[in-house]
């Protein structure tokens, strides 16, 4: 059986702990609310703390939840982390550079990180998708896209 210490590095255990911490933090904010606006969040977060604590306790001491998931999730590939990091950079860059310029860099970079090496595909998909989005959202529908400030 897995030791208690070993369980701290287990994501099955970390997720309910995350929820528990969120609920505890949020309930600590409720006393500042208007009395009428406080009742529901307090009750809800109380319930959340109870449920998350039970799940943590089950993971910690019994090593399983009420209904055990069928199987452990598969591992995380290196490509996943690359997509997350590139996606985060893309998100931040849209705040400063608007939508189109970061997209021209993000699309080929993301495809490259996932294993696409053909230059024609990289350039073709990038140009086609950015042009389509510009035509549909920017030109045709005149809908807002993140702008360069």
């Amino acid at each position, binding site marked *: 059986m897995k030791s208690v210490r070993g369980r701290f590095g287990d994501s099955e255990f970390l997720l309910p702990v995350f929820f528990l911490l969120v609920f505890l933090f949020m309930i600590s904010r409720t006393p500042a609310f208007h009395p009428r606006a406080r009742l529901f969040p307090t009750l809800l977060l109380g319930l959340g703390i109870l449920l998350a604590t*039970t799940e943590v306790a089950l993971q910690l001491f019994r090593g399983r939840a009420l209904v055990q998931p069928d199987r452990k999730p598969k591992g995380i590939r290196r490509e996943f982390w690359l997509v997350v990091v590139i996606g985060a950079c893309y998100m931040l860059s849209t705040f400063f550079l608007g939508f189109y310029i970061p997209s021209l860099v993000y699309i080929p970079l993301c495809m490259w990180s996932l294993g696409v090496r053909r230059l024609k595909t990289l350039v073709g998909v990038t140009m086609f998708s950015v042009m389509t989005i510009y035509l549909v959202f920017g030109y045709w529908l005149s809908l807002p896209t993140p702008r360069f400030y």
Partner: protein
Amino acid sequence: MLEAIRAILEPQTMLTFLGAMVWAIILGILPGIGPTLAIALTMPFTFYLPTAKALGLLVGIYNACIYGGSITSILINVPGTPGSAATCADGFAMSQKGEAGKALGISLSASALGGFASAVCLLFFAPLIAKVALAFGPAEYFWLALWGLTVVAAVTTGSFLRGMIAAVFGFLLSLVGIDSITGSSRFTFGSPYLLEGFDMLAVVIGTFAASQVLVMANEGGTISKAGKITGRVLDGLLVPFRHLATLIRSAVIGVLFGAVPAVGMSAASYFAYAEAVRFSKHPETFGSGEEEGVLAPEVANNATVGGGLIPALTLGIPGTESAAVLLGAIFAYGLRPGQNIFVEHVDVFFSMVFCLILSCLWMLILGIFGANVWAKITIVPTEILVPLITITYFIGAYASGAKIINIIVAFSMGLLAFVMKRHKYSLVAMMLAFVLGPMVEDNFVRASLIGGGSFVESFLSKPLSIFLAMLTLVSLVWALRREIMMARKAVAGPSSSAA
């Protein structure tokens, strides 16, 4: 009535209508553009048409746009409209099994039948349904929403405890922003961006689309695990007729939820989905590509069209957000709801009903020809789809409210939903609580204030509220019984197999 039908069937009008249907389906496919925005965007182009045709066209746009939203839900797990988010769970699972064509067929047929059912209700039962919708006060809204929340257990396919934690988290997200009763801010941490709360579309897109991007990046390959499409559109078209009970139940839910003001399409589709799970003989198959999991929300979300128009046309109270914009169009054309439409301009009313039915027929024709082509997206390599879906969901999240915070919300929700999905925390339960949460709280407080603190006076003073309270109680007992039975089965399973 015949006069109105003849006017719509003129070749020129039919061609205009066909173009409008294609336009509406495209707008529905694009995330961030719901039926409300679609109607608003189309309205200026209708001013050259006669009033009856123009308003009929807008009703058709409303209906077809909702159907369009389900296409991306099924193919790439990106809900085009919040109302089609409930379709993601089983629709996308069918695509992963190579049955995208069949799933699109079910959604097409279900959407058309939902729209048609709502048109029939609009035509024959409008005064009756309007009366029921008006009987809804805070207590009734509260019980209705609470009833909806009791189905969290039904939609939780893994651990019940984890489903409940996900639901509490979803409820918590809905509490962020200004409290509608007291006007005080909650969980905003001094940020002006959070005063309006989390944008529903940003949360929906993040939960389903952004998390799916991460799943694809982690797994690679194609959406269709087999790398090919086996199910055909025509296979799916007849599915609704094999599940008549689900079809009728979902249509009734859609019409009623559409007619009751401020409940909306998202709640209707989630509620119909949850009821389909609850009544199913094999609820454990939901979430892994169950036909009824596509059928129920798709019938319900299109059935809200006619439902939403009932109080709008009879009383001037829009049942849904999109019906409110349509009501604006009715006023813009110089008409007034009630007697003005039903007596003085009855041709306009018939034109709207007929166009709703006609839009269902056009949807079927366009869908049958288009779906097999759209289904091919499920065999496009994920290396190409990942960046394309990312930029689409960024645009969709931003377009809903034009706020940068929406992109951050979608991205963060994607990361969290990815982890939750891996550990079997129900995303549907989270979204159900997020959608119904504000309705529960607001109406609980309102009913308490009206009843002066007495529980019976506040919540059980009318026959309708007593009826809804009883339904909630029955639903709760049913959910608990199901959980106990499942726990017993889980305990008995290993020992019986060992024996």
